[in-house]
């Protein structure tokens, strides 16, 4: 356990000296900020015509949508760069197990994404306002506040999706020595999982379509967690992706030893 934490901590610290991580964080937060302003503005204008109150779901959808493009940049160098610079030799001759290394890399990246996600908590806070007893520090925009259940399930979905993306990204990064190759392989996989699966579902009829529909990540997030429902099948789906990514990574590191 301690080994995983040591690796994760270094990985997390490393993001704060890497320009890519700042670019990713900036891009996500800027896009979300603009989108938030637009939604709130639009909702305020439509409020008289009985439009529903704004909630957090569209923002969290956008967050995951952006992760499809940005996580590959976050994970591309995680293990591939260690192999390129030779530091992998250092880690593989240190008294840590291969899965601890991969798990640590994954956890470090996840903590970084979660740090960005924590900043987005500002949006529900603005919507809900800050009211401590009788003192109103920040007046709520939505009365009596946003849908709590939706908020929790939506954030849970974002965390699971981010964890899956990172696990797959770290796994693919372990296969490659070139980080650009790792980036495009990861991005291609995410693109297929997020966008292409519904296309396949529409193309194929019958039981084949169900398989593609189950693999469709969008269906497990946008149509599930992000509508306020927490179902076991969706949780299992994301956990399977995490396990697959971490298993791939560990196997790839082991294969490197044999080469």
């Amino acid at each position, binding site marked *: 356990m*301690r*080994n995983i934490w*040591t*690796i994760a901590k*270094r990985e997390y610290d*490393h993001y704060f*000296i*890497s320009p890519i991580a700042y670019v990713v964080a900036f891009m996500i937060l800027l896009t979300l900020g603009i989108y938030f302003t637009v939604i709130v503005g639009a909702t305020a204008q439509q409020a008289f015509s009985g439009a529903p109150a704004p909630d957090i779901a569209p923002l969290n959808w956008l967050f995951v949508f952006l992760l499809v493009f940005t996580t590959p940049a976050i994970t591309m160098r995680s293990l591939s760069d260690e192999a390129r*610079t*030779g*530091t*992998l*030799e*250092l*880690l*593989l*001759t*240190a*008294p*840590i*197990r291969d899965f601890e290394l991969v798990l640590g890399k994954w956890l470090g990246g996840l903590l970084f994404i979660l740090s960005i996600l924590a900043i987005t908590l500002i949006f529900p806070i603005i919507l809900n306002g800050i009211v401590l007893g009788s003192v109103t520090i920040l007046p709520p925009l939505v009365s009596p506040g946003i849908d709590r259940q939706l908020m929790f399930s939506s954030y849970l979905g974002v965390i699971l999706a981010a964890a899956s993306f990172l696990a797959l990204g770290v796994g693919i990064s372990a296969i490659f020595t070139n980080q650009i190759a790792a980036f495009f392989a990861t991005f291609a996989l995410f693109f297929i999982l997020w966008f292409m699966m519904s296309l396949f579902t529409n193309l194929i009829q019958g039981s084949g379509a169900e398989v593609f529909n189950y693999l469709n990540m969008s269906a497990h997030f946008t149509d599930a967690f992000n509508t306020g429902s927490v179902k076991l099948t969706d949780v299992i789906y994301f956990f399977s992706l995490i396990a697959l990514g971490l298993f791939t990574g560990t196997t790839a590191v082991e294969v490197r*030893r*044999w*080469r």
Partner: protein
Amino acid sequence: MIQVNGLTKDYGARRAIDDLTFDAEQGEIVGFLGPNGAGKTTTMRILTGYMPPTDGTATVAGYDIVEESLEVRKRVGYLPETVPLYTDMTALSYLKFMADLRKIPESEQRAYETLERVNLADRANSYIGNFSKGMRQRMGLAQALIHRPEVLILDEPTIGLDPAQVVEMRNVIKEIGKDRTVLLSTHILSEAQQICDRVLIINKGKIVAEDTPENLQSRLVGSQRVVLRVRGETDELAAKVSKVKGTRDVEAKSDGSVEFEFSAGQDVRPQVAKAVIQAGFDLLEMRPIGLSLEEIFLELTRENVTGKKAA
């Protein structure tokens, strides 16, 4: 401390090391000598638990390198050929990370002590990316020493250093080797001669010689070759020299000198000198050609050893 038995490693169809057997005692500095691609790095990588062998067994500090790899790795300090450094970390934070990986309590304190040991304490908060080659090499050594390992495995520790740094690095290794087992690889023979208690010469994955540097030299120098220079006809001289009892391999060189050989212990130089003078030549020079470790090395690692001395 290190026991290697029949170690073999194949990369696909290519056999990198072939049935290696050797050992190293505690407090011994063993030099691994061989040309590039001889299998030095492969052997070291197997001993440090980086990769498993195809065949054979080895124990380091009493633990099997395959079955108890983690125990071995806890007790081995390893400096790979390409020094593995995170260039965007400071010297201190890098060593602290390595100390944490090895679960050393008070890792920062230990990291600082180790920096002092390799004379880099004044650069503790500098980024490794700004370090010179010599400093990076010392950082690599610090990383290998941080957990005070019983066994140190150093892959070409002096490569790329300037002469002053080489001397410094050698002194550090000698100092460390007093109470630990050190296995180091090099292709510089004088280096092996200076710091190693024992030398293993490896070529094409096989050990071709194993001894102390002194013994290796005297064992291989079974005969002494001498170059003789006179004023006069060399062919005639060669004929005279070969008549002297105990000389062999007499050869007239195109540069006007004559070379000959005699077995160690039967010094025929006075007789040769006398014969040359008596034949009326003016003796200008008579000089032994020392068979240096370089030549021994070349001879042992040559593809086709013809039995002729490489002069």
